[in-house]
């Protein structure tokens, strides 16, 4: 392995560590909400500092690799992709922190009927699955798996679209639970953005492996493997 190969391997390992950290934060935020566990929520808030610190370290590592090794072709695309994926992961970390902030702010247990009606658990689980998928796609350089995320995100979009109606109906019958309802709606919006961040990560993975730019392309074109389609 050349010196550059060693640096790129270290960068990849650190990125995977960032993926794991953020996934753990997301899963803990789900537990904190559904168990109404304020201690766990505080733990996520404390860990957010680690996420932020790690983001800064990864940015510096990418900067150093570009400055010292002048990578080209796939190596350059890899480093550029890592810089963007790093930013996406940090935002997912912020989302987990935001959810836990709600847990700390609300005075009463989350309303179970509302959580079921809005399919919030399904949103969390889908978000975690999508994040795990992009992490695996990144590790295994699997663009097919990366592309599958665009379809899976539709579940999150659908739940988000129906959220206004579900929450609105609940509020009509439970006027004393307006605050809780609004918090739940905010959480739904946040979880929908987890899907968006993961889609961005998929685009970066496809960019670095296939040198294809999928940004701003329609979903149908994003899902096509090279050689498919017209």
């Amino acid at each position: 392995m050349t010196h550059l190969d060693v640096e790129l391997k270290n960068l990849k390992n650190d990125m995977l560590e960032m993926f794991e950290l953020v996934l753990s934060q997301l899963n803990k935020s789900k537990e904190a909400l559904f168990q109404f566990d304020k201690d766990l929520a505080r733990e996520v808030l404390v860990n957010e500092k680690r996420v932020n610190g790690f983001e800064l370290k990864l940015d510096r590592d990418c900067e150093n690799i570009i400055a010292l090794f002048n990578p080209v072709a796939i190596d350059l695309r890899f480093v550029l992709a890592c810089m963007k994926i790093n930013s996406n992961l940090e935002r997912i970390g912020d989302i987990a922190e935001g959810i836990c902030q709600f847990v700390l702010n609300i005075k009463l247990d989350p309303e179970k009927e509302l959580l079921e009606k809005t399919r919030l658990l399904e949103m969390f689980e889908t978000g975690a699955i999508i994040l795990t998928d992009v992490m695996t796609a990144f590790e295994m350089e699997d663009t097919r798996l990366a592309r599958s995320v665009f379809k899976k995100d539709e579940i999150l979009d659908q739940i988000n679209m129906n959220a206004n109606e579900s929450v609105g109906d609940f509020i009509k019958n439970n006027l004393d639970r307006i605050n809780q309802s609004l918090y739940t709606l905010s959480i739904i919006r946040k979880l929908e953005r987890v899907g968006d961040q993961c889609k961005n990560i998929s685009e970066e993975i496809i960019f670095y492996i296939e040198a294809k730019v999928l940004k701003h392309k329609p979903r149908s074109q994003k899902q096509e493997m090279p050689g498919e389609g017209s």
Partner: protein
Amino acid sequence: MQKIESNNVHLYYGTFHALKGINMSIEKNTVTALIGPSGCGKSTFLRLFNRMNDLIDGVRIEGQCLIDAKDIYSKEVRIEELRKRVGMVFQKPNPFPKTIFENVAYGLRVNGITHSTFIEERVERSLKQAALWEEVKDKLKKSAMELSGGQQQRLCIARALAIEPSVLLMDEPASALDPISTAKIEELIYELKSQYTIMIVTHNMQQAGRVSDTTAFFYLGELIEYDSTKKIFTNPTEVRTQNYITGRFG
């Protein structure tokens, strides 16, 4: 204790003040790149540490040059002993007109070693360290002049390593080589630093970035900036350093 130190070193070629108050210390098992425009004093500074400047008429040195905390210009120092500890590789490969084996064995024989098994083992080890063994092991009796430029340069490195120096001085070791040979030399430097302390003069900024831990920027005989290579190439302190590494002068 630092491996190599220069304390307020001045060097004059006659009346020309070539090095002006250089203060630098280099850690053991690191690679230090010396960069700067032509005529800035990089090679002059490099040659301080094996006292090759002594061979130039009219040279005068002030200040201290230390290796392992010992002043190498003190009267007690024997230059032959110093040059065993401090190996040098030059810009143009300069193998002797001898066989590959004898090129590497030469330093050992000159130092009075005659035990043939010992010499064979040392030659093999040095050629392996220089990443050349696999390419030449079946033709050690062939002339070194038949090797390619990159192979000759690695042979010169093996020759320097055979007498077990602790410091390696390299004066633009890859500038006469093609890109593939250059890459091999650079990887070799990266691997060798675990055993040696290396100083390398280079005009190739990207090379300095790739191989070195610390970088020293010289200009008109002065040491302008000396810091970790990461710092120099991402956020140098001095404007002159930034202008040089971005290609705005020199």
